[in-house]
């Protein structure tokens, strides 16, 4: 339903898109996941005919975005990163206007607007309340409703929950889920991995203007080395010693200095868990917690985009080249890593301890 074929776009010296390829089958939800500056919004702008690619083409419902812009726009609903609703109009007026601009008759547009306000639970506000007085979540729902006024077969949502509070995000998720269950093909960009995991049938990871990985959430997790073991050391433990012990047992460890928590790659599952706890025990370090778990999408994401490479210059197995070349790596780590709180003290003790990954 959406077919992106090798689109490239350069802004001055910045290669925003570098041959993006993507296929979205009819009736599925495709997540496009990437840090700020990865090329998500540029991809969306090409697909919505707002921007001409330098090369390549994309097809929405069989129509070319470069040659058949008007036809594409007729088959497409768009909801932007910044909810583009008219603040001076009421929700009803906003939706009626969009309906009319899709070519609906005024009476039909009004009926459709009423229906959507009900569906998106926007009908319990006073009739004369302007969109400018809506909460962030309501505004986003209104924008989303605007995207489907004309019941388009394809809907593109650019970071639909960025900047929303948890409640607003959950409401928006519900709205997207009900949209998808109605058979609409959805392309959704996000920098929240949880969101892609929750909503998307398939996830494409974009970084530096290229699709660097694709698959279901489960596939992406398996691809990046399987399970992890989290170990929380007893307070006052020698972190460097612990890392060294785990490494000698043959496991890569990441340490969050602030919480004293070790995250260890454990492709061998429970066997590795026993192994790791044993190695720590052997050097006299006790854990207050030790648990085997699947990697989070954050870890998958960071591994794929190489964002950790900036901090693990000493990690023999690290792929420094990829990490350093990712223009947005630092941005991504700041935005998406829940543990990214360390600060300048982070790397020092660990660097002394030898080759480990450090989460700053």
């Amino acid at each position, binding site marked *: 339903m959406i077919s992106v074929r090798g689109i490239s776009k350069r*802004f001055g010296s910045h290669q*925003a898109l570098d041959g993006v390829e993507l296929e979205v089958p009819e009736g599925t939800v495709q997540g496009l996941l990437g840090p700020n500056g990865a090329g998500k919004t*540029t991809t969306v*702008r090409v697909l*919505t*005919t*707002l*921007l*001409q690619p330098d090369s390549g083409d994309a097809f929405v419902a069989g129509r070319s975005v470069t040659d058949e812009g*008007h036809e594409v*726009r*007729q088959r*497409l609903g*768009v909801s*932007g990163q*910044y909810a*583009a609703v*008219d*603040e*001076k*109009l009421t929700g009803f*007026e906003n939706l009626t*206007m*969009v309906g*009319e*601009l*899709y*070519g609906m008759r005024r009476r039909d547009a009004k009926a459709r607007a009423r229906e959507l306000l009900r569906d998106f639970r926007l009908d319990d506000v006073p009739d004369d309340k*302007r969109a400018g007085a809506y909460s962030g979540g309501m505004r986003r729902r209104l924008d989303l409703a*605007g995207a489907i006024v004309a019941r388009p077969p394809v809907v593109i949502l650019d970071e639909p929950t960025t900047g929303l509070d948890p409640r607003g995000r959950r409401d928006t998720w519900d709205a997207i889920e009900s949209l998808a269950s109605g058979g609409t093909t959805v392309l959704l960009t996000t920098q929240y991995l949880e969101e892609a995991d929750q909503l998307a049938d398939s996830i494409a990871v974009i970084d530096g203007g290229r699709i660097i990985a694709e698959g279901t959430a489960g596939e992406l997790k398996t691809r990046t080395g399987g399970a992890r073991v989290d170990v929380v050391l007893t307070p006052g433990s020698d972190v460097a010693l612990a890392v060294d012990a785990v490494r000698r047992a043959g496991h890569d460890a990441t340490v969050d200095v602030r919480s004293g928590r070790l995250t260890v790659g454990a492709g061998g599952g429970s066997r590795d868990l026993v192994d790791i706890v044993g190695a720590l025990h052997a050097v006299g370090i006790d854990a207050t917690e030790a648990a085997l778990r699947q990697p989070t999408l954050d870890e998958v994401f960071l591994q794929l985009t190489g964002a950790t490479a900036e901090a693990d210059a000493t990690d023999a197995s690290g792929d420094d080249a990829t990490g350093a070349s990712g223009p947005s790596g630092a941005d991504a780590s700041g935005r998406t890593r829940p543990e990214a709180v360390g600060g300048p003290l982070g790397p020092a003790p660990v660097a002394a301890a030898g080759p480990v990954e450090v989460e700053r």
Partner: protein
Amino acid sequence: MSVAGVLRDGRVIARRNMLGVRRTPGALVTGVAQPIIFVMILGFVFADALGGDNYRQFLIGGILAQTLTFNSSFTAVYLAKDLQTGLIDRFRALPMSRVGVILGRTTSDLMTNLISIVVVIACGLVIGWRVESDLVSVLLTGGLLLLYAFATSWIGAFIALTARSVEVAQSLGLLWLFPVCFISGAFVSADMLPGPLRVVAEWNPVTAVATAVRDGFGNQPPASFEVAQGWPADNALLYATLCCVGIIAIFAPIAVAQYRSISKR
């Protein structure tokens, strides 16, 4: 996109714009206060040096031309604001006419201009200005004023779509107004200006509109004023109309071209 489609979309956008203007009447303060201030300053501060009551008869045509020129900055600011808030992107992603967005703006801004015209005329009546012609002339003059307002609005639209931010649109949209309005016959006779400026003023569309409006309302210049000579002065209504058509013919296509080429990152 058919002509009917363009007009339809233009009407939808115009309706939306007018709702917006109605709900933020504060934005109209400039449109109302500015002509009042100009009428009062020129009508009282300078009038006595320039011919007293007779100058006040002469003045109103000039203020109308100047006010409608200044009002083009409303178009520039409103449109730049829609660009900045992402609303234009929303429109551009809809299967609607691209001319429609701008046409809706320039059409709805006629409303603002109409208010300004009424304010200037009311101020004029207060300071002793009078209409000294027949109904047909008055109606023709009203038509010319609206046409001119519509034309300058397209200049404002072009400025907004070139500037792309409210701040730049605001300053660019104001900057050109002063030379254009003051190197003209709006406030004094064009033939009272020095050397080359006189030629500029004689052919300046602002002069043509001001002169045509004075002719239409039957207002005479003060006896001390040099009477403007030449083809534009003798055929003010025709020349003013041609100017309006010319402005639209130039600025509508380039504004639409700018609209098409917008690719904010």
